[in-house]
């Protein structure tokens, strides 16, 4: 990876000129061919999909050292990104003129943009190829927090099979499946995860499979060892074991991605990861789902081919530590509220002798072993934290947060219930508690992340009128606002010419080479805050008028 420091000193001067003009708010040239003031829009804006990736040739596989990642992000990242955010606050760098992340190897616009049906949500990245028949164990998984196997089913499909902590059945397998579906619906690439049930006799051990127990020495995986491993796993009433099977991601694995810098061997990787909208916005999604373990190690880059072109695709993996699960057991109360190493909070706790417990310590957690520690009362979407700082999360600004929050808010109660159902909880009360927490956490996200911006979106042209949705007003309990729309011609070079006779949502007349801008501001009622206006740009494309850009 190219670190921020390397980027600053080596790559930055050379690459910035090019990188800076890649997406939004970028300079350009006039159509006449002379150097002019930068123009705002190109003919192909808004870019909804990144251009087809270039072929990746030599790619090195690399791993991220856990301790390095921890130390770097605890001690270096917050200061560096904090300084960066103060010195040079800048919006996400990979967004199109509408402020959206275009489809590409990192991200695909899904549920918010093209509403998915309940069936599609439950299908997620796929739900039609669970492991079937007898399973042949081809290797034993020895990394990660829980032991597991790599198996091959009768169709030669490969899966990583992971177990729940024996004392907490369903604790990890449920979230792992739910997470794969929700993050998929949110636009990320995720593996196909399944809750599976199997009997001991369904397992066969492949030749030469070795197993490394926690004690460290590798030895052959024998039937006896397998029995020993399964010994503590609870069986269902039908005598089957429950586990989570994650279908092997196609393509050669080239390691996890980093939340900062860029891959130095990928020509398509031209935006520092900490400036990617989908990684900055992930903070909000992670907060919603209590995914405090958003480390590099829980991501995966693979080499995939499309039209005979090999490129790197980026995945989020391993959701066994979301919701109330911490992977090896239930989350602890501090998860999501404190970094592993804090500066201020410990001093306060030490000085007050712990006599004033923080709000999260006083919250209510239901005692469902399959759920772990999950609540909504103590949840604060803004102050929520992963276990240790994430470079992209440190740079999340209000627009990144709004981008993510509108997607979270798009999930209806029924859709959330349907997604939680894929976790196959045996105790309906457990599933209902997760649904309740996700619904309430969603509402808190919408409330807090919509407030700093004028939450208008889904701009459209209908019968010569500019239409839009007020995402806050359309929420339960939201109140409709009055808006003022001011129209102006826009010359692409930063100059607006007011159109005095135009007003309201009716789009004024303009010719085919012109752009018009509608600046929409809200009229504050008594006691209501009114965030800054939103400017929407329109142009003619063939015979119709289209929305080409949004400034928030």
């Amino acid at each position, binding site marked *: 990876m190219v670190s921020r420091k*390397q980027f*600053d000193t080596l*790559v930055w*001067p*050379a*690459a*910035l*000129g*090019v990188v*800076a003009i*890649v*997406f939004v708010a970028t*300079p*350009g*040239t006039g*159509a006449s061919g*002379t*150097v002019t003031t930068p123009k705002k829009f*190109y*003919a*192909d*804006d808004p870019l909804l999909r990144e*251009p087809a990736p270039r072929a990746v040739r030599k790619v090195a596989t*690399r791993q991220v*050292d856990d*301790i*390095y990642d921890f*130390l770097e992000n605890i001690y270096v990242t917050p200061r560096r990104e904090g300084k960066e955010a103060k*010195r040079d606050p800048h919006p996400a760098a990979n967004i199109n003129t509408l402020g959206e992340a275009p489809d590409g190897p990192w991200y695909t616009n899904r549920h918010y943009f093209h509403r998915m049906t309940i069936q599609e949500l439950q299908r997620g990245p796929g739900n039609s190829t669970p492991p079937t028949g007898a399973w042949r164990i081809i290797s034993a998984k020895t990394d990660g927090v829980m032991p597991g196997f790599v198996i091959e089913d009768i169709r030669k499909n490969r899966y990583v099979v992971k177990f729940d902590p024996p004392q907490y059945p369903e604790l990890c397998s449920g979230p792992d499946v739910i997470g794969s579906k929700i993050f998929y619906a949110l636009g990320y690439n995720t593996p196909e995860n399944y809750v599976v049930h199997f009997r001991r006799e369904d397992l066969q051990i492949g030749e030469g499979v070795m197993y490394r*127990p*926690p*004690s*460290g*020495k590798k030895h052959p995986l024998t039937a*006896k060892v397998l029995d*020993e491993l399964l010994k503590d796993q609870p069986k269902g009433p039908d005598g089957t074991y429950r586990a989570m099977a994650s279908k092997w991601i196609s393509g050669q694995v080239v*390691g996890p991605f980093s939340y900062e810098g860029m*891959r*130095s061997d*990928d*020509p*398509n990787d*031209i935006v520092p990861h900490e400036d990617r909208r989908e990684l900055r916005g992930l903070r909000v999604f992670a907060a919603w789902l209590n995914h405090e373990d958003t480390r590099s190690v829980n991501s995966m880059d693979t080499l995939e081919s499309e039209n005979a072109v090999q490129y790197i695709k980026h995945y989020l993996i391993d959701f066994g530590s979301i919701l109330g699960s911490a992977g090896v057991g239930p989350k602890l*109360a*501090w998860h999501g509220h*404190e*970094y*592993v*190493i*804090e500066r201020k909070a*410990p001093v306060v*706790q*030490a000085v007050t*002798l*712990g006599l004033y*417990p923080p709000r999260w*310590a006083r*919250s209510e*957690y239901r005692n469902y072993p399959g759920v772990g*520690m999950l609540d909504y009362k103590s949840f604060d979407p803004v102050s929520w934290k992963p276990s240790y700082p994430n470079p992209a999360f440190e740079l999340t600004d209000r627009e990144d947060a709004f981008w993510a929050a509108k997607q979270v808010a798009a999930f209806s109660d029924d859709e959330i219930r349907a997604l939680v159902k894929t976790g196959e909880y045996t105790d309906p009360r457990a599933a209902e508690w997760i649904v309740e927490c996700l619904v309430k956490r969603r509402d808190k996200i919408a409330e807090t992340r919509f407030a700093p911006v004028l939450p208008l979106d889904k701009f459209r042209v209908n019968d010569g009128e500019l239409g839009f949705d007020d995402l806050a007003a359309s929420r339960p309990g939201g109140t409709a606002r009055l808006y003022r729309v001011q129209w102006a011609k826009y010359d692409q070079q930063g100059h607006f010419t007011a159109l005095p006779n135009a007003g309201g949502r009716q789009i004024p007349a303009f010719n085919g080479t012109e752009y018009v801008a509608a600046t929409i501001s809200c009229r504050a009622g008594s006691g209501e805050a009114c965030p800054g206006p939103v400017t929407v740009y329109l142009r003619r494309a063939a015979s119709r008028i289209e929305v080409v850009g949004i400034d928030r």
Partner: protein
Amino acid sequence: MNDLKLVALGFALCACCEFAQAQVQSRTDTIESARTEKEANLKPEAPPKAERDIEWIENSLPYRLLTTQADGFGVVLGSIVPGQSFGAGPSYRRTGLWGGKLGFAVQARGSANESYLGRFDVSLSHLLGDHAFLNFTALHRDISEMPYYGAGPDSRKTGRSDYRLEDTNVEVRPGVRIYKGLRATAIGSFLAVNTGPGHSTRYISTENQFGPGVAPGIDGQTNFWRGGGLVEYDWRDHPGGATSGGRYAAQYVRYLDREFSSYSFFRLDLDAVQYIPLFNRTRVIALHGASSLTDTQNNQKVPFYLQPTLGGPDSLRGFRYGRFYGNNSALVSAEYRWFCSPIVELAAFADGGKVFNRWEQWNFHNLQTDVGFSVRVKGRTGRSAFSLDTGFSHEGFQIWFRVNNLTL
């Protein structure tokens, strides 16, 4: 750096604009231009130097020896007697043998004050359908500076003496799991003991300070057969860092003097600890009570080196290790622990205890007391990785530093 960046940005943008006049006509073009630029400067992906350095440290032998919890060789650190010289030594461990039923561990440790320890453990677990287990331990200690202040609750701090304690204990403990955390264990062992002059030049040797009337057995050591049993019920949530549940144990052991038939006795150890979680386990009240009772028959005596003691990191933390010797002891302590940060826990504690001669004196009168505070740094598993306990009593203060539950 900012100025340089601005200059670079200016040049880059101008260059790009010039270049773009002919080339860039669309957003797609700008992206392709950036890709072209990147493609011309591709480099193999490699970890930064700091990461490589950390990996090198992680793979180094000293690091692995000090940190590994896995099978194989390691280094064990910690004083052989709390509060005395720092000790260290090699260890070797194998687990998972015989289908996961058999494990063994061996360690040797030496400290700067010429104390030594050797220990060999074999454990057979998951026997009889996981209902039975058997542990075997052979332990030899040669402790050059065991403290002795005299017998009973009225011993004086200034009366400190030292003696050498050499003992070898070969012990077998077969047991059964009755139900969940309820276990019953039989105890059988052979214990050979020798005492001698203390090594320290700071303190008088015990035999020069105390005669056999005060310190029974000082004039002639013996060997013992030991036999007895232990019943315990353990329902702590995490034995290494419990926040709820408790452990209650009663151990009865009969000591039979093989040489003189003068020092046979029995010893009953009662121990109960209860953890009360508050505020989602971010605060815990830990209550601990323990009592060791001995008795003899026919004018036999309990040798001083096998008497119950109080003082040290596991009993009265404001007193020196082994500060009080007596035929019987009682200890109560209360601890309030609170979450300070995910890896730091603080605690305030109060201990009270006494040694006494007759069972009728088993009460809470005339307790030696201390108060103190503790800082504990927890590891990944929630167990205490380091702890620093400071106890204050009328005899001053004591600081106990532990790594992985071994007192340094």
